[in-house]
Structures are given as structure tokens and as C-alpha cells.
């Protein structure tokens, strides 16, 4: 059965034919048959024309119950043949089946309760679209489908809505061969294993996972492995750990690298504790208290040590004493145990008496070696001997009249001032005459200078503007000292012998500031004739020592010198 349809492209109505623009009232078909439709599109209702590129053209005809536009199709066809190129009467053809499940249902065919209808009036529409362009539809036309009388020759009814195929079961159980167009509803399929092999999945770049990293539902995406994850053969694994904790790639066996655990990464410790282990047996480190630590190493506490010292009447080596002994030994001096003890006793005693801090320079040149004799017992700095100096066991003196020792510092730098000073000079033998200038800090042209031991009957003994008579001097070996006693409000000059002390007191204080020139011992800088030609066994420059402190100090100094040299001052 063939039906010729003419579409007026101007009015979009089905018309009688070319030039016959009256509308077709209704189309009539017979149920159970497939109607061959030949559609000609007429420009201006007259001239047959094509309606688009056959390769891009989609045409469909649909039949639904009248005025039920949202109803599913009762008959429907999208499979159209296109006219040949150059055809004078381009005609579009399709076979529209009226043997459908939906149409049978509408006619009550097979109904157990309702009688079949003789015919049914439906509505139809032809729609076409070229490519992605907007679709064009005819005006809705009436379609009358008459029930058929002779049956038994038609095939099984089609589904008029193949676009909504519902599949159940499993994909493996279904036959998906052939052509299936439109959306396929696979929601009813059981999510079971299927037979797709990996190679059937869409091609992906090397070393990528399939997943989705973009927010929201959407298409699968390629995901790279990074941030410590890497591909290894057919698997992904954690990359190798480096840094403070290391592990090979893919291994959970981690190792703390050598030297990686800083103090900051250790657990906090209580104050005054150290790492160790006091508990018996092997085990974790512990934070030990001082008492625990001492027990571990078998050490005595300071209290224990003090007790031992007191009980045994011991004298501990003084750090300054050890340092001085080490310095002079390094310089080539030979220091006996007795000498070490004497030095230690002297320095410890000075500290105990509170005088050590007051002493700024103390030279003890009894070692017979220039380098050792130049070392200050207090500061460990070195002076510089110059010229002909004799280094005797009892002390140093100018060999002839040309020689001195530069202390390489000045009194001001030492904090020794005209209001806080003390000088001591131990002279083992000889007189103070012969223009001896044991130490000076200024040139001889300036009478406001420090020549405390210059007793030549001319300049006498002087500290800046203060002059002592020196009438008590005996010209015997002695320790001579001079200093200020601010508490007593006077200046003193003493010559200390073992049996007696000559002393001269001057009231008041030195008002002129001390010179800033370097401190020289034995003689003056660049002046030979005033050098000391009798030994100096010790010399010190200090800040203020009271007269009582001076007495104690010279006693200690005498003991030191006598013990170390093995000689005796009268």
C-alpha cells in the first residue's frame, strides 16, 4: 500500500497535490499493514523540492492519540530513504508500521474486557531537521486507522517507541546485535561483571588513572599519579621517602636517617637532667637527675667533694694557677710540684682575701727564661723585654744600663688611677740607688710622674705630685709598696723586711691623673741610664689596697717568691 503525501512548504499543510493547495482532511490506514509513504515537499505548494542535504537530514513521522501530545507513539518511523540527486520530483519514502503493540492496545485488540474498536482517529505529524538546525514540522493532521478484518498474516507487532527500550537482566544475556537507536535505558541491568577486557576501554595516556577530579558528577577523566604516588609496572605505589625518614618506593619499612633527629625533635626534658639510663637492664633512655647521673658515672657531688676536701685538708688546683703554670711551662719554664703548689696557694689565697680581682698585672720573673718571665700571672698576657736583660733565678735586671720590659698596656686601661692604685716591687738584693727606675709610665722630664722607687736623693720617691722622703729606706732586700688608702685618707709607702716595716704616710690623695703612656718595668722606654740594675723578683699593679690589705698581700707575695725561688728575703 502506498500513500502519496504532499507538504506545502509555505503553509506546512498536507495538501491534495501540486497546485492543489486544499488541505487533506484526514489520512486513512489499515491496522496490521505497513504503509509505504511517499512524501513530496512542494515549494509554494507547486514545485517539488528537496528539503536538505540527505546526509544531514533527519525525518520522522509520528502517530499519537488525538490531542494527547505527551502520549507515546502508536506508530512512528525515522527510517527514511532520500531522493536521488537530480531527481525532478524528489520524493522521501518510509514504511510506517500500523502493526504495533501500542496501536493494538488502542484498538483493544487482545483485550479480555473490552471490545475491539472498528477504527480509531489519531493525529499525525511529519518533522524534519537538517544537521543541528531547528526542526520543522507539518501542521497536525488527522489519521484514521481502521481495524482489520483478515488477520493471521501479519507478523508480530512492533514497538512504536523503540527509543525507550527497557532492558532487564544482564548484558551478557541480552542480544544487543543489530541497530539500536535513541536512548537506551540500562538502569534495570544488574551491576555484575561483564566481559569487557581492559583493552576495550577508551585509550588513555601513559601512566594515568581513570576517575574524576573535577567537582560534581560528570565524565570520567584521566588522573595523574603525583605527590608521592608513582606507577611501577602495572601498579601504583608510594614513592621512595627521603629526608629525615627514608623508605624505598612501595615499602612500608621506614628508617630514620643518621643525624636526622635534632634536639628540637626529642621530647622535652625537665630542667637539669641529662639523657642516660639509671634503671637496671637494657631499655629506653631516661632523663636522669644530677644525682642519678652521678650514680651512673660514679661521680661525687660538690657537697661530697667539699666534705672530702675538708676532712683531708686538701687544696684544689685553682684554675688561674693552673693556667699560669701551663703558660710559663709552654714558654719553656720548668715548674716543679712545689712551685705549682706555691702558685696555687698564692692565687687561691688572694682570691679568698678578695685581692685577686684588684690585681691587674703581676709579673713573677723568676723562671730564667724571657718568654716565661714576660707572662703576667693575672692576665696571662705577655710583656716585651727589650735590650740587655739578665734573667736570674731571683728575678730580672738590666745587664748594664740598657733594658726594660714593656707591659704593652697603660694604667688607665687597667683601671689603675690616681684615686685607686697600688704598686708592689719585690727586690731580692741590691740597693735602690744608682738611678734605678724599676717602673715608670712617663718621661723623666715630667716631674709629675710615677717613680716610686727612685731614691737618688734628687727626685726622691714620688707618685705624681706627691713626694715621699724615703728617709726610712734601709737599702736592704725588701718588698716595697705604695698605694692609696681612701678609707684612711692618705697615701702610704712601705719597705717591708721580714723583721720590720718602714712606712711613710702622706695625708690626702693624688690629684694629678696618671699618665697614659705604657707601663714599663726595669727601665724607661728608650732610656738606658735609668734602668734597674738590681733584680726585680716580682712586680704588680693593682687598684686600691688598704694598708691592711697591703700588709697581707706583701706577706703572701714574699712567701710565694721564697717558696718558688728557694731563696730568702731578710
Amino acid at each position, binding site marked *: 500500500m502506498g500513500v502519496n503525501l504532499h507538504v506545502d512548504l509555505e503553509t506546512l499543510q498536507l495538501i491534495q497535490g501540486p497546485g492543489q493547495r486544499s488541505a487533506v482532511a484526514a489520512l486513512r490506514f489499515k491496522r496490521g499493514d505497513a504503509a509505504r509513504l511517499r512524501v513530496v515537499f512542494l515549494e509554494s505548494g507547486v514545485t517539488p523540492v528537496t528539503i536538505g542535504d540527505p546526509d544531514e537530514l533527519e525525518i520522522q513521522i509520528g502517530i499519537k492519540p488525538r490531542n494527547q501530545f505527551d502520549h507515546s507513539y502508536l506508530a512512528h518511523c525515522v527510517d527514511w530513504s532520500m531522493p536521488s540527486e537530480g531527481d525532478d520530483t524528489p520524493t522521501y519514502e518510509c514504511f510506517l508500521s500500523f502493526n504495533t503493540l501500542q496501536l493494538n492496545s488502542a484498538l483493544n485488540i487482545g483485550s479480555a474486557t473490552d471490545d475491539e474498536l472498528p477504527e480509531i482517529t489519531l493525529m499525525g505529524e511529519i518533522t524534519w531537521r537538517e544537521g543541528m538546525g531547528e526542526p520543522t514540522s507539518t501542521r497536525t493532521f488527522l489519521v484514521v486507522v481502521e481495524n482489520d478484518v483478515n488477520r493471521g498474516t501479519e507478523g508480530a507487532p512492533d514497538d512504536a517507541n523503540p527509543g525507550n527500550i527497557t532492558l532487564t537482566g544482564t548484558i551478557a544475556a541480552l542480544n544487543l546485535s543489530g541497530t539500536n537507536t535513541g536512548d537506551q535505558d540500562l538502569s534495570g541491568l544488574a551491576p555484575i561483571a561483564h566481559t569487557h577486557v581492559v583493552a576495550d576501554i577508551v585509550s588513555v595516556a601513559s601512566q594515568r588513572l581513570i576517575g574524576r577530579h573535577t567537582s560534581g558528577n560528570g565524565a570520567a577523566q584521566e588522573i595523574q599519579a603525583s605527590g608521592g604516588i608513582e606507577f611501577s609496572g602495572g601498579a601504583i605505589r608510594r614513592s621512595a621517602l627521603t629526608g629525615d625518614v627514608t623508605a624505598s618506593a612501595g615499602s612500608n619499612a621506614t628508617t630514620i636517617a643518621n643525624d636526622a633527629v635534632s634536639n628540637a625533635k626529642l621530647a622535652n626534658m625537665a630542667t637539669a637532667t641529662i639523657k642516660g639510663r639509671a634503671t637496671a637492664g637494657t631499655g629506653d633512655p631516661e632523663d636522669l637527675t644530677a644525682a642519678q647521673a652521678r650514680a651512673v658515672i660514679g661521680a661525687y657531688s660538690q657537697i661530697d667533694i667539699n666534705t672530702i676536701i675538708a676532712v683531708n685538708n686538701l687544696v684544689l688546683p685553682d684554675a688561674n694557677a693552673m693556667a699560669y703554670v701551663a703558660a710559663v711551662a709552654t714558654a719553656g719554664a720548668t715548674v716543679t710540684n712545689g712551685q705549682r703548689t706555691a702558685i696555687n696557694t698564692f692565687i687561691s689565697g688572694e682570691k679568698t682575701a678578695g685581692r685577686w680581682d684588684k690585681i691587674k698585672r703581676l709579673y713573677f720573673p723568676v723562671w730564667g727564661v724571657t*718568654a716565661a718571665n714576660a707572662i703576667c700571672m693575672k692576665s696571662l*698576657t705577655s*710583656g716585651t*723585654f727589650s735590650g740587655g736583660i739578665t*734573667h736570674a733565678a731571683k728575678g730580672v735586671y738590666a745587664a748594664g*744600663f740598657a733594658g726594660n720590659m714593656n707591659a704593652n698596656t697603660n694604667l688607665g686601661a687597667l683601671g689603675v688611677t690616681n684615686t685607686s692604685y697600688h704598686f708592689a716591687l719585690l727586690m731580692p738584693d741590691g740597693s735602690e740607688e744608682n738611678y734605678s727606675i724599676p717602673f715608670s709610665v712617663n718621661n723623666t722630664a715630667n716631674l709629675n710622674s710615677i717613680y716610686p722607687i727612685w731614691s737618688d736623693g734628687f727626685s726622691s720617691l714620688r707618685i705624681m705630685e706627691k713626694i715621699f722622703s724615703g728617709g726610712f729606706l734601709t737599702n736592704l732586700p725588701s718588698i716595697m709598696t705604695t698605694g692609696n688608702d681612701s678609707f684612711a685618707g692618705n697615701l702610704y709607702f712601705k719597705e717591708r723586711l721580714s723583721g720590720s716595716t718602714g712606712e711613710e704616710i702622706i695625708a690626702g690623695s693624688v690629684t694629678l691623673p696618671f699618665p697614659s703612656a705604657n707601663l714599663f718595668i726595669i727601665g724607661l722606654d728608650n732610656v*738606658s741610664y735609668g734602668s734597674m740594675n738590681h733584680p726585680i723578683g716580682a712586680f704588680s699593679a693593682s687598684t686600691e689596697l688598704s694598708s691592711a690589705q697591703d700588709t697581707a698581700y706583701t706577706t703572701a707575695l714574699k712567701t710565694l717568691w721564697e717558696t718558688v725561688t728557694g731563696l730568702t728575703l731578710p
Partner: protein
Amino acid sequence: MIGFVTTQEQADAANAAIAKAQTDRGMPVFWLAGSIPIHSGEHAGMHFVPCDDSILSTPLIGNPIQTPVDYQEFAKIIESMGGLDVRIDLPAADLTSPDIEP
């Protein structure tokens, strides 16, 4: 007094070389030959560098005792000043500063 009569510059250079010999050995400068201006006599205005036997035998360091002549640098310094034979015996009075009254 036995020693070298020289200019102040040469005397300073000799003492600087002596100092360097000590600092080069990591030691402080604990000894110098010294230099004294000559105030009177035929060499007035020059400088005197003491260099008698006591200088040459000064015990600088011990264990064992080493004197200036044990140092190679000192021999060169002596040589630079003309050698020991050019030393003179200078009257001590020539070195006495006029600022000091005997």
C-alpha cells in the same frame, strides 16, 4: 756598651724583624733587642741597638734554652747591620737622656 750604631729606621727594621720571628712561630713578642737614641758623643742623633754578649745569650725560651743566635732570622738581622764586627763600645753616658739628672 756594645752594640750597633745605626739610623732609627734601620734600628726599627731590625726590631720589627725580631718581632716577626716570634709571631711567625705563634708566640707573642716577648723580646726585642731594643733601640736607644744616642744623645751625645760623636754618634749623637743616631740610634744604638744593644748587642753585647748578654743580648746574644738571652735565654728566650726553655727546654732546651734557645738564645737569639739559635734563630736563623737573628743571624740575618746581624748580617744586615754589617755583622758583629762593626759593633762599637759606646760610652753609656752618650745614651743618658738629658732629662735625667744623675
